[in-house]
Every structure is written in structure tokens, then in C-alpha cells.
């Protein structure tokens, strides 16, 4: 079984600054995917970014980037130029890479990010 750990329950950042959210995971799988999902107060679940474990290059999506350290089983999210709309709960999630079958997401406990003026 896999586990996902987010050790920062809450974080705060000023608008336009950079913040990094931490995530570690444990798995015996060789092929897997890692995700960051954002959950604003409306409680929707919005995909922020995805990393494929077999790719060494860190994923980026506009102001969002990850630092994926496979050996350390670490997957942090960096948000640059933070905006008020980034205020949300952020969940790190793991999915094994199975073809031809469904792959559940295993979520961490989340980090509540507050962006302030």
C-alpha cells in the first residue's frame, strides 16, 4: 500500500511571493504518477500539475512547478508570483500506473495555503 504525507497543515505567503509545499510518499511501485490538486473554498477538486515517475524532468505549468526527487520519494510544489486566487487547500496525491484498469488516487492530508496582501 502507498502512503502520502504532507507535513505542513497550514502555510501563508504574501501576494507575489514564492511558496513551496512539501509532500513525501512511500510506495513499492516502480511506475506511478504524482499529482497536486487544489481545493478552493468552493470545495471543487482542481488538477494543478502532474508528474510521471519515469520522467526525470520536473513538471511545470505556468506559475506552478514541482521538485520531484524519486530516490527521496519527495514531491514538492512551488508556486511563484502567488495570487489571492491561489488561496486553497492543496492535496498531494499518488496513483500507480496501471494500464487497462482503474488506478485510485491516494491523497495526503492537505496543506491549507493562505495568500495575503
Amino acid at each position, binding site marked *: 500500500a502507498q502512503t502520502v504525507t504532507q507535513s505542513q497543515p497550514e502555510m501563508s505567503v504574501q501576494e507575489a511571493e514564492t511558496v513551496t509545499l512539501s509532500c513525501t510518499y512511500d510506495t513499492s511501485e516502480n511506475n506511478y504518477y504524482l499529482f497536486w490538486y487544489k481545493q478552493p473554498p*468552493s470545495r*471543487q477538486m482542481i*488538477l494543478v500539475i502532474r508528474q510521471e515517475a519515469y520522467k526525470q524532468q520536473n513538471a511545470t505549468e505556468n506559475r506552478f512547478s514541482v521538485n520531484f526527487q524519486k530516490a527521496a520519494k519527495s514531491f514538492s510544489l512551488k508556486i511563484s508570483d502567488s495570487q489571492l486566487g491561489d488561496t486553497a487547500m492543496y492535496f498531494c496525491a499518488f496513483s500507480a500506473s496501471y494500464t487497462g484498469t*482503474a488506478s485510485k488516487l491516494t491523497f495526503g492530508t492537505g496543506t491549507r495555503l493562505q495568500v495575503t496582501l
Partner: protein
Amino acid sequence: EPEVTQTPSHQVTQMGQEVILRCVPISNHLYFYWYRQILGQKVEFLVSFYNNEISEKSEIFDDQFSVERPDGSNFTLKIRSTKLEDSAMYFCASNNRGNQPQHFGDGTRLSIL
């Protein structure tokens, strides 16, 4: 952009009653999921569904729960006899391949009285 839609957005039910939560996954998606999030807690996997059968279920998904794809578009979660601890936000998700990102609906808030 296609969306996963869930109805109702909020369901209030008396303890012991049956409830059905409905989801319409994205039309070309083949894999379907239900997750639960108790208020203030993390999102937990309930069940996955593919090719008209359950692929995997968690220990939460006991005999009180069932899923069904009654037609080509809907995917439902039924709780046969609700308990107070079933109060939570229930999310439906889908993807077109098992290892692709899952698209989530907006959730159904279930309140058991």
C-alpha cells in the same frame, strides 16, 4: 471543456434512509471513481469501476454501499441505510485511461440527520 456533473449538490437525509448520489462522467471516459471527504479531513477512495464492474474498493465501501451504471451516461452511488458517519462530501471522478488525471465533479454534500 467537458465536465463531470454531480447531482444533487446537497442532500439531507434521515438516518436509516437510502440515498442515491448521481454522477455523469465525461462522455468518452471509461473509468469511474467515488471518493469521500469528511469535513476537515482528507479525500478517501471508495470505489473504482470499469467495464461494468467494480475494479477496486476500499474498506469503507462495505455492504451498505453499491455502485451502478444504469445507462450509458450515469454512474450512481447508493447507500442503503445511512448512518450519521456517512455525512461527508462525495466526489465522483472519471478518466479515459486508468493512469491519466482524474477529472472531478463538484461533489455532493450529504448530511445525515
